[in-house]
């Protein structure tokens, strides 16, 4: 049952550019990118209960690193560029995660919020490197002899990366590390009493989450083709939170579903900008009041 569903999803994902119009292929690419961010955020917030309001900052770092690396070394194959973007962001995640071990709950949320603001301000002010508010044009991604210059090519790149990241996250969730994450989420002190090194696992979650978001940032750079700091404001971080709240905290596939719904909703509301936050705010409140655990909890069998 689960296997056939996954198979159908894979076929649908692969066939999408063949049947869908160009714009919807682009939208599908965005869904894949956002799914990777949502999983990354969920590993941190859903699995270890460390609320982050600053993931747009991680995304920005990944995107700018990928763009700048490609500008310097145009021939670098895309997977390597994405890896560099992910690792650079993971390093920032480590640098932020270790001091943040001392913080929890709303303190951590506010520290990450401040981190997000500082990142965009830094991008604006380091204009010799990032071109600041003028924005940075991202060169086309290269993979050996191919240049990924069509929407379909970028779609397949994003979907392939997303699929690999989803599988990896599912595996992480099923291991000792994943169980340790969930134990920390339920009760940090009880987890520690059971011999789980909470500080180490919380740091791992931070680094892993930053890595995912950095890779997604690299994809985002190639997909959108143009970066400017105002694209990474705090409201983007809030969008990511809506994705995992709707999809389900502590669920990998829920994150994907949440990312898909929020991305499509975001796009269909493009003509009604004023209503967008109204609807997203309502989703957050309704999920918290009436369906904690999000979509993932609704599909889970009751035992």
């Amino acid at each position, binding site marked *: 049952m689960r296997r056939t569903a996954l198979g159908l999803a894979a076929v649908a994902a692969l066939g999408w550019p063949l049947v869908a119009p160009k714009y919807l292929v682009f939208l599908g690419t965005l869904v894949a990118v956002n799914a990777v961010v949502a999983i990354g955020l969920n590993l941190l917030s859903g699995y270890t*209960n460390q*609320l982050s309001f600053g993931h747009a900052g991680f995304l920005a770092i990944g995107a700018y690193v990928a763009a700048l690396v490609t500008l310097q070394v145009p021939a670098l194959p895309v997977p390597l560029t994405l890896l560099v973007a992910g690792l650079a962001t993971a390093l920032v995640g480590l640098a932020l995660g270790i*001091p943040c071990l*001392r*913080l929890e*709950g*709303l*303190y951590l*949320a*506010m*520290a990450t*919020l*401040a*981190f997000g*603001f*500082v990142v965009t*301000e*830094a991008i*604006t*002010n380091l204009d010799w490197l990032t071109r600041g508010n003028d924005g940075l044009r991202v060169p086309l991604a290269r993979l050996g002899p191919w240049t990924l210059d069509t929407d379909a090519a970028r779609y397949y790149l994003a979907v392939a990366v997303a699929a690999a990241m989803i599988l990896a996250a599912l595996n992480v969730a099923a291991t000792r590390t994943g169980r340790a994450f969930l134990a920390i989420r339920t*009760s*940090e*002190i*009880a987890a520690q*009493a059971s011999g789980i090194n909470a500080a180490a696992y919380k740091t791992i979650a931070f680094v892993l989450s930053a890595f995912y978001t950095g890779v997604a940032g690299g994809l985002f750079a190639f997909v959108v083709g143009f970066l400017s700091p105002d694209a990474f404001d705090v409201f983007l971080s*809030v969008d990511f*939170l809506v994705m995992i*709240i709707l999809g389900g905290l502590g669920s990998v596939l829920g994150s994907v579903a949440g990312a898909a719904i929020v991305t499509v909703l975001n796009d269909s509301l493009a003509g009604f900008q*004023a*209503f*967008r*936050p*109204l609807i*997203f*705010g*309502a*989703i*957050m*409140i309704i999920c*918290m*009041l009436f369906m*904690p655990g999000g979509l993932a909890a609704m599909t889970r069998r009751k035992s």
Partner: protein
Amino acid sequence: MTGAALAHVVVSGLATGCIYALVALSLVIVYNATRTLNFAQGEMLMVSAFVAWSAQRAAGLPLLLAFACGVAAGGVLAYVVERVVIRRALSATHWDVLIITLGLSLMLRAGAGMVWTNDELPFPSLFSNRPVSFGPVKIAPVSLGIIGASLVLMLALVMLFRATRFGRAMRAVAQNQNAARLMGISVERVYSGAWVLAAVVGAVGGVLFAPVTFLSTKMGLIAINGFTAAVLGGFGSMPGAVVGGMLLGVIENLAPLYLPTGIRYSVPFLVMIAILLARPRGLFGRVERRKV
């Protein structure tokens, strides 16, 4: 920089700091009663300021009365929000309530944009903007007005918490909810009361602040500075919130004189990160013990 010019910068910093202090106080009042952070506090004071603007513009009320309308509207809004939304989530974790208030802040901001406008509006002030000379020092009356009004309000809060039954009930709930309930205090009533009181304090900050910047739906972002101020003083401590607010206002006004202009807008955030990393309990905070 001469001493007189420095004094001018410090006084206007103190004025901004008073607003931060009021916002910080409103966050702390809700936090002490319900142990949650109200993310929508900034948007609630923004709505109050818009109501005051409408009362003065559309209804033609005198300025002071319009301000009172705005503040009262803030209180009513807080009461409704607490009863309709927050009360349902009382048993939920604080995490959940934080997300709910975040959702609320998005909705209030979007709603205000629809009802009023997303543009920036000039806001009438009680005090003049033209500097008055005190010897060599030039000071804008609006700064003194803000400082004076804030101090009066803070004094009123001290009286409320020290000398009234409701204030004592709030302090009891902040200390120990179960014990307070056993002593016959209605904890639910304290929750509503805290939300309303916080909204009123925030709204006064809002109508004082709106003339200095502009009236806009973005005004709610001041809550971030309010939070920084509260953390600076030690989150949960009311005197800490006041001192933290003043300190943040002065730092923010002095920083551009000594630092490159680029980091000017990051100052509150850098202060927040610095204080969270170096001393999360702030200047006057206590360490709270966690329980399983």
